[in-house]
């Protein structure tokens, strides 16, 4: 979850997401020079506010996906792209209300944040220098006053 008061727009979440999740080398100095360049799953654009997947309870991307590539992990509730079956129809890209699903032109798959479901803790929250990104339960987040 993002605390918009704390986000300074420093792009660190993008940089380390790109390195840890999207690069093949997983080392910043090498990832920088990888071609095609790694595509981060979190975005800071225009305003200091990190955008990443909300893993909606009623998720339009799940409904829009024609062949079940977009899936929800039954245990954690996290939504992820099953890359081998993606047909690059970009329906999910069009319906996402937050604009966080992006077409990867080089790989022909939709790419989106899966909240580092295989890593235990999201890397963006780990590296955020101001603590703007943090992993909190949705109900706790709602109680906060922003």
């Amino acid at each position, binding site marked *: 979850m993002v605390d918009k008061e704390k986000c300074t727009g*420093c*792009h*660190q979440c993008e*940089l*380390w997401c790109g390195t840890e999740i999207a690069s093949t080398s997983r080392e910043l100095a090498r990832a*920088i020079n990888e071609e095609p360049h*790694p595509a981060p799953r979190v975005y800071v654009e225009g305003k200091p506010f990190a955008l990443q997947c909300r893993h909606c309870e009623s998720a339009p991307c799940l409904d829009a996906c024609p062949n079940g590539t977009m899936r929800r992990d039954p245990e954690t509730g996290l939504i992820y792209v099953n890359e081998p079956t993606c047909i690059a129809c970009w329906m999910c890209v069009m319906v996402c209300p937050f604009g966080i699903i992006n077409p990867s032109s080089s790989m022909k798959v939709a790419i989106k944040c899966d909240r580092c479901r295989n890593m235990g803790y999201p890397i963006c929250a780990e590296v955020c220098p101001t603590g703007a990104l943090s992993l909190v339960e949705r109900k706790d987040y709602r109680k906060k006053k922003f």
Partner: protein
Amino acid sequence: MEFIQKKTADNAAEHFLAKAADRGTKLAWDRFEGQLPECGFCESGLSCRDCLQGPCISHPFRDVNKRGVCGKDKDILAVQTLLKLVLKGTMASLDQVSDFVEGVASGAVKPKDKAEADRIVAGIEALLKEGGAGMKKAFPKDLLAAWEEAGIYPQGVAKDLFKASQKVEGGVAGVEETLFWAFKAALLGAFAQRLQGGLKKAVFGAAPAEIEVNMGILKKDTATILLYGRFSPVLKAKIAAAAAKKKVNVAGVCTDPLLSPYVFAPVTSYGSQELPLMTGAVDLIVTGDQFVHPSVAAIAAEYNTVVVPTETLKGRNPEAFTNEIVEKALNAFQFRSSVARDIPEAKESALMGLSAADLDVKKIAVALNEGKIKGIAILAGTNNVKFTQDLPFVTMAQEFLKDDILCISEGDASVSLAKYGFLNPRQCGKHCGDGVAKLLKAAGSNLPAVLDLGYAENGGVAEFLFALSAAAKKAVKELPVLACFAEANRSAEVAEALGLVAMGVSTFFWPSLPVTGSPKTMEALGKLCGEKFGARLIVHTDKKMEPLAKARMILKVFNRVEDPILKDHPWTDWKTQG
């Protein structure tokens, strides 16, 4: 963010880490952990704060912001980051030498060799204004010719440093041109160091001395002054003279330990500079700017230690100032009698301050030519909190000496090695392989395993290299010499590393410099420098490499074993050349 790694290899320092944790005192290691993860853009040299339209970054993973507002791309951003570091490092050398000249010119000390001192002072004054004509005497002809050809022959501070500093302000200079400005600046720094070394010799004389290092040298029953950082030798001598009269103990941290006839025993090395204050046995510290953590003031306050910045001397009579310092130290000693003095037993003897004149350079040259030793490693630089303090130095010295590579060290690297007995002449046999042991016996009397060539500010390494090159009748770049900044940290070290590369010594540099974001700059530091100077700056990006792996990688170069990491390395060039 957690960072799991042993903090230091020094037992004396480790003792205080536990104490600091108990008391809640935050040290450099704790603050480093708090900084993690460090900004990836800054780490790769892809950020810029040079103007107020920014700050800008070059985003490696996105196309919309590949260039800064003014149009700097990743290559220019990275090479300019390097230039900025070098400029700052060169300024450090120039600042020291100008302070020294001011002290000598004011007549505060009587030079041993007045004529030589006057000559050098005139040379330094010329260097600061415009003409660096003295360069011709300080460096060998072939190097000067190579620098002239590469377009990096420095003309003097006013002509070069001002221009170089403007390369970060704007203009369309490319990677190569900007890099050469960095080399030009680095050479000015190297020249300033040589002049400083000459002046120190002319004013105070120079002789190696066996001194004791590490925190065990602190005393329980005597008032103690610690000199922190590099500042004017004239002021240091005055403080030592005033302290000697009142029987006050004076030691140093990150400061040149030898200033004939005085000795400032190094209490610890750079990385653990906050810890001597935690012994409670320091009554007063005199702090310069270079190589001093601002945090020492807060820790000094915790232990009621008086802090006197050298800046407070400005406009005052140096005699009165130093007497006042000593008085303050004595008062503080009385006042602090309730502070417990916790002094660890650690103490080691070290022979420091050798110079080319104290060594039989001819014998070293012969041993190199005949293959009795495989090469010479220059261990330089201070500590960096990113590595286990001193461990890279110790591991490298151990591995190199075993494999018949002569090790020389300078500055704070010497202090680090001295703590583990590498500079103790009586422990020489313990570390060395046969070839090095025989050479050390022949090349001088009572030499330790690692030869300390004095503090970096005195340019002792360059002097040694030129003497060796003359004796071996080979250019420096043709000698099997490698420099290794195993845990570098300050900008002065970056400037020094570039200076060494320009002189023809391939240099390994850790941690990786903020140029890794630019493939062009990385390539220029390797290939272009190889073509122009016959030496390279080798920047490694692997953060997880163990010290032993690093040492073995360098050993491969000395043993001329082909290795994919070292592809196109000058050593193979060197091998094909001769």
